[in-house]
């Protein structure tokens, strides 16, 4: 029965058409999601990126049947999120931003609770518990109270729980938020491992641009719309330009010279607090550097050339860096937050 999706040949694990969500009314109307279209392929790891308040979480809530769309439609694992709510729920696993474990229970008790709620057949439960617990490396901690767990361990347990009922699609909403870099990396290792072990589609939201590198494809959402959708490599390649940063004796003169001589628009950016640098984008940055020394006419103290990062991708598609976008994010009503 859970095979029906694959057997009927439906390629999309998630299919979204014209999905909208608004909160409030009149002058207090907030358009959190402004009509998005998206297909997530079966078996891929799909990254959903954007600053806080971009509408990512509202979208994920609608896909998980936790919020009703104002307009449009969506199917998850072949089931309509409005008309077939329980069917959708049976076929998805969820890992939320905030922990939803009962810390007064042990790890195993939390998993058993989940298994009963989802109706996992009892004979299959024992082996499945071993499987998901060892996948996230918590088998030896299964009888410990969750309140003794670190943030990373709790997150891993939640991933194990989300997988317990063998969902077709695993949703993770900011699974690495609030974790240290090392733990973040280990969470992504477990997610990578997933595809080797389970036949599953992973839909993950994040606002850490570097994490999107782990995804097969990604969409960037900004102000309720999807502004870019492709593989991380293709998105970076589409920008084409490398980023060059130079430290000079006279930044203003350098910027003026870059504009006059090379027709390049450059800006001053801060480096380590007190020092500043001139930053600009240019195709073939490494070849450009020698010309720069010959023709700029302003003494250059240092040069760095970087390949476009996903931060640059975000900048290119939204006109802001993700940090600026977060700082400027409009206040989001509490029920729609993140």
């Amino acid at each position, binding site marked *: 029965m859970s095979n029906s999706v694959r057997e009927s040949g439906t390629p999309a694990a998630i299919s979204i058409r014209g999905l909208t969500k608004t909160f409030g009314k009149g002058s207090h109307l907030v358009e959190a999601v402004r009509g998005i279209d998206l297909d997530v392929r079966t*078996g891929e790891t799909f990254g959903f990126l954007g600053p806080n308040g971009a509408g990512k979480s509202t979208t994920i809530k609608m896909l998980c049947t936790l919020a009703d769309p104002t307009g449009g439609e969506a199917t998850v694992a072949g089931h309509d999120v409005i008309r077939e709510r329980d069917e959708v729920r049976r076929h998805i696993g969820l890992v939320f931003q905030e922990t939803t474990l*009962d810390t007064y229970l042990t790890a195993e008790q939390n998993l058993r609770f989940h298994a009963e709620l989802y109706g996992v*057949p009892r004979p299959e439960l024992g082996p499945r518990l071993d*499987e998901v617990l060892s996948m996230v490396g918590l088998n030896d901690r299964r009888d410990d109270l969750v309140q003794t767990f670190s943030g990373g361990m709790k997150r891993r347990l939640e991933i194990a729980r989300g997988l317990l009922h*063998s969902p077709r699609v695993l949703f993770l909403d900011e699974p690495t938020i609030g974790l240290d870099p090392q733990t973040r990396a280990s969470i992504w290792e477990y997610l990578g491992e997933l595809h080797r*072990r389970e036949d599953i589609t992973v839909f993950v939201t994040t606002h850490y641009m570097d994490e999107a590198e782990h995804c097969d494809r990604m969409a960037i959402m900004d102000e309720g719309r999807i502004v870019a959708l492709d593989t991380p490599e293709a998105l970076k390649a589409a920008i084409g330009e490398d980023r060059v940063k130079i430290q000079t004796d006279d930044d203003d003169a350098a910027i003026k010279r870059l504009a006059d001589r090379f027709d390049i628009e450059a800006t001053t950016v801060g480096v380590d607090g007190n020092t500043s640098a001139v930053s600009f984008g240019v195709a073939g940055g490494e070849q450009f550097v020698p010309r720069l020394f010959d023709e700029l006419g302003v003494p250059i103290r240092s040069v760095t050339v970087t390949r476009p990062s996903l931060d640059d991708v975000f900048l290119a598609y939204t006109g802001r860096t993700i940090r600026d976008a977060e700082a400027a994010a409009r206040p989001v009503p509490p029920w729609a937050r993140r």
Partner: protein
Amino acid sequence: MSTTQAPVAAVRLPTTGLRHQLRATSVVWRRELVRFMRDRTRALTGLVQPLLFLFVLGTGLSSLVSRGTDIDFRTFLYPGIVAISVLFTATFAGISLVWDREWGFLREMMVAPVSRASILVGKALGGATVATAQSMVMLALCGVVDIPYDPVMLVEMVVLLFLAGLMLTAMSLAMVVRIRQFQAAFPLVQMVITPMMFLSGAMFPLSGLPRWLDILTTLNPLTYAVEPMRHVVFAQLSLSASDQATLDPGLTWGDWQVPVPVQVGVVVVVTIGLLALAIARFDRTE
């Protein structure tokens, strides 16, 4: 990304049915018990108030109020206080739904493919069980106030306590299902249960009350939970007819003496009504 077809111990979920809903109810129920067992402090503090009522208030007032009758005031007070011991724990169990919401665990239940009724019924049964378990300590003290340890009485009391606990947990749930902050839930429930406690006949006999008080006690559903308990306990005592009339006059609707089974029926009907209300108010989509 290509998925390797390694043998995967994937589980297959059966189609949703009554059996699945019952499993969900059962696990929500068992969680309440596990949490109660882990929380010794809560189990102990829940007993402080009823013990104070029985032994401090009861002893203090007994010299004043026992004069007209042959029976110790504490003996009179006992069934009412046992009922009150259920009241606190049961209503707190209902409030724990708000706690679950604040700590995120409610979401784990809300996104599961089960009906909200299954979740709330489990929660109500859990609250009632925990409250009954706690009131057993009070029940064990009946000898201290000169009430014999009669097995039938004790069994009847446990059943009545469970029903009262179920009604009070359901009432508490119905009040808090839409509340998002724990601090807001507590005063609200307190505001309702305190008058209910005073107007239930737990603390004073229902005989010779002024008209307004008589009306309020008759309307109070808790009265229908306390009266049967008093009836069961007093059946163990050899009371004079006048003491019986003073201390346990029973409940009347107009001129009709309401029989004990009908009183219990009122509790059951109110419980079902409150549960239905709680389920209807329980917003599933956040």
